[in-house]
């Protein structure tokens, strides 16, 4: 029996002119791990909220068709009843924590089910051990970091051993290490507990290797329902914004089939003779900072809160005018604290911070900046023009999409002609929850600003975005920089803080993006044309470019075999 079954389901939010889900038919079988892909606003979150019962019971709206979760009709059973079979985890962990301590948070769902104290104690202990948060059990929830909160929220969703787990971009606030750990954990839960998992995610390269099946959504409809390999082939032909960097790398290099993960990409490249076998990762080097007029200079900056460990430990950092710097590091490394001090929101305990003029800071949540009823009231016409929102002056800020709100907040901090242009623009996790297309737009916009002489300091967990936006990367660990060098040096030489292209090519040539990597592969292939294990040449047979939405209606029961059966070269 399907754990989740939708039959011709159409749902519209109250007052919405178009449905958020449009004639969706879907069957999710027991034990599947399904990745939900799609651009922002395509209907992924609505589908998850429907499966948890929040739609329509909390959000209202109109439903047509059938939606059944573990035998319960969603229209007749609210989220409280569905919680017994479906655990949910949403994007923002702060609003999902409802109790004062981690132990109480994990006990809460079991108490709601009327479990005995002994069963609650055992369930809490097991969930905490499974998620590696046993050491946090007595900690107050208000003292947890974002990554810890997300783990606790996931544990609370899993503690009742639900048959179906619904996750809405659970890695969006996690660093690459924690994100990979979370995906690994989901895979283990899926394999060992048989939990059915429905995971919405923008960074598909993180999770496709774990998936049995991928559902791509567009305009509230299911545009593709296929196994990961077929999905990538479909994305290459029909939705390039959903293509993973690895798939694009090989497609651009003229190789196929589209690889599901780094390991398979390497196998294809090795078989084709395109994998650099003698790599010499360049050690990260400090770069001479002030090439021109300095936009920022930090000298021995310490931040030591009373009674707590130091957050920043003697940071020295210089950024020149027009320089584009990405600040990376694990959750809690001190990135946000550094930005706050640079922008003058807090004062360091020791050290000096000198700036070449005004510092503009865009914090993580763009909504915090938006207080007016019209876009035109939030920022000047010039600033709106600069961020590409000139045609939206009469819209309500809260009606804008996530990417548009981010740009509007950027216009707010940039200011108009009556305010001096910032010497430095700091952005704290600007791509949180953004799809790939919006990230690309933002990278272009930031590049334009840097070209006018504004220095950029971008704190991000996203290596792909860092590679697109920065020409220098500073890696922060435990409050101090541990690597500072050209993006190609730092991002090509790491394991976690590296782009997928760099991981596939093992840092060869400092190639970070698919285009640079493909050029490198083509050069190698031209030098060594031998191909093993497949036809010598010929067109890449990717999935159908057009036709009915579902390219592979039969879901795969097991993860795809990562080993390629053939290597094709264009």
């Amino acid at each position, binding site marked *: 029996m399907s754990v989740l079954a939708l039959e011709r389901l159409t749902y519209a939010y109250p007052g919405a002119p178009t449905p958020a889900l449009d004639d969706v038919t879907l069957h999710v079988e027991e034990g599947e791990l399904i990745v939900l892909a799609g651009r922002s606003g395509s209907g992924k979150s609505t589908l998850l909220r429907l499966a948890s*019962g*929040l739609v329509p*019971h*909390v959000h209202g709206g109109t439903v047509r068709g059938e939606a059944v979760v573990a035998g319960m009709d969603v229209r007749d059973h*609210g*989220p*409280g009843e569905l*919680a*017994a079979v*479906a*655990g*949910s985890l*949403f994007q*923002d962990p*702060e*609003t*999902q*924590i*409802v*109790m*004062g*301590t981690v*132990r*109480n948070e994990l006990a*809460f*769902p079991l*108490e*709601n*089910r*009327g479990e005995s104290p002994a069963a609650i*104690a055992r369930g809490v202990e097991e969930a905490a051990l499974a998620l590696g948060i046993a050491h946090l*059990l*007595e900690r*107050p929830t*208000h003292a947890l970091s974002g990554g810890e909160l997300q783990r606790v929220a996931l544990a*609370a*969703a899993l503690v*009742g051993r639900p048959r179906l787990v619904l996750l809405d971009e659970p890695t969006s606030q996690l660093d690459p290490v924690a994100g990979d750990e979370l995906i690994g954990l989901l895979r283990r839960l899926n394999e060992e507990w048989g939990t059915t998992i429905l995971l919405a995610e923008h960074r598909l390269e993180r999770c496709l290797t774990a998936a049995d099946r991928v559902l791509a959504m567009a305009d509230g409809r299911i545009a593709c329902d296929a196994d990961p390999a077929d999905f990538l082939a479909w994305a290459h032909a029909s939705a390039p914004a959903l293509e993973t960097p690895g798939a694009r790398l090989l497609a651009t290099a003229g190789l196929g089939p589209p690889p599901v993960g780094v390991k398979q990409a390497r196998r294809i490249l090795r078989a084709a003779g395109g994998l650099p076998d003698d790599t010499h990762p360049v050690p990260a080097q400090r770069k001479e900072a002030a090439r021109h007029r300095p936009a920022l200079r930090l000298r021995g900056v310490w931040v030591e809160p009373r009674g707590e460990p130091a957050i920043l430990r003697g940071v020295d950092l210089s950024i020149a005018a027009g320089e584009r710097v990405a600040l990376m590091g694990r959750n809690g490394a001190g990135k946000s604290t550094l930005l*706050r001090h640079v*922008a003058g*929101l807090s004062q360091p305990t020791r050290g000096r911070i000198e700036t070449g003029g005004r510092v*503009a*800071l865009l*914090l993580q*949540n763009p909504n*915090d*900046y*938006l*207080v*007016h*009823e019209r876009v035109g009231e939030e920022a000047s016409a010039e600033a709106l023009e600069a961020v590409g929102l000139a045609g939206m002056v009469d819209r309500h800020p809260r009606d804008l999409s996530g990417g548009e709100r981010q740009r509007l*907040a950027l216009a*707010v*901090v*940039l*200011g*108009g002609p*009556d*305010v001096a242009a*910032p010497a430095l623009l700091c952005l704290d996790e600007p791509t949180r929850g953004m799809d790939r297309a919006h990230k690309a737009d933002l990278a272009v916009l930031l590049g334009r600003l840097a070209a006018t002489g504004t220095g950029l300091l971008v704190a991000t967990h996203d290596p792909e975005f860092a590679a697109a936006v920065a020409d220098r990367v500073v890696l922060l660990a435990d409050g101090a920089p541990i690597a500072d060098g050209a993006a190609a040096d730092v991002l090509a030489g790491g394991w976690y803080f590296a782009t997928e292209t760099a991981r596939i090519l093992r840092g060869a040539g400092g190639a970070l993006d698919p285009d640079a990597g493909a050029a490198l592969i083509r050069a190698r292939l031209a030098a060594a044309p031998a191909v093993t294990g497949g036809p010598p040449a010929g067109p890449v047979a990717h999935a159908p470019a057009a036709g009915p939405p579902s390219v592979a209606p039969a879901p795969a029961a097991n993860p795809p075999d990562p080993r390629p059966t053939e290597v094709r070269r264009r």
Partner: protein
Amino acid sequence: MPVRRTASPLHAARAAVGCALCAALALPALLFDDPLVLGAVVAAALATGTAAGAGRPLRRALLLALPFALAIALLNPLITHDGLTVIARLGSLPVLGRIDVTLEALAYGAVLGLRALALIVCCALYAAVVDPDEVLRSFRRVSFRSALTATLATRMVPVLQRDGRRMADAQRCRAGAAPARLALVRAVAAGALDRAVDVAAALEVRGYGSARRPPRVRAPFSRHDRAFAAAAVVLLAATVVVRATGAAAFDAYPQLHGDWGAGAWALAAALVLVPLLPFLDRRGVEPRAAALASGWGRR
């Protein structure tokens, strides 16, 4: 102000006992006008909080409450025309009419301010030493819907505090002029509503909406439970007895009259000393959640 789980006898006691102690401290502040008793309540709450390792948040609460108490003290003589001892004639003011400030109204204003201070410090003590999760658990057995409302309100406070701090930071980052206060208030209200929906949704998907009545957990009283419960009973008894005997009476009008005899002093001394006695026994003082988790239960 979130509860601070420190290793103290009061934190090791069950939430119901903590509630009872805070109520026993607050009750005299409601029943008596005597400044000696009210001052003793403030001192007792501060001393108890300090002994429980929560002195700093309590002192902060006291400092925050002082302007409020002062405002009450200063407003009363302007509004109240009772009392016989006129100490200042301020003439006539619109709306308020003729203002004659009397010593009695001034003194009673100070009493009201002190009472407000005492109640705020008692609430701060409750917030600092009583586990709200455990209170909720107990409350749910009595009234499910009320517990839901209380939970929502409790959870919204820290969430909105964080939102407020973030929003204030964002407004400091704006280029150019700051937005009008009205726009800010509107945005804060809209954000609070959004947050409330988010928190309610989180409670729903954790199964709160269809929660069953939780089973009654019978656990023996620990030494700390017994000690603080005894302290609360003694305070309650002392309050009732002193009130019944008419001791510690204080009348502001028409002329100041106070009874600062043995009864008042005894009650004040009891208020300050009795809640501190259970702190003498510091065996097994780790917070309750840890004790329960370790399987030892209550000792």
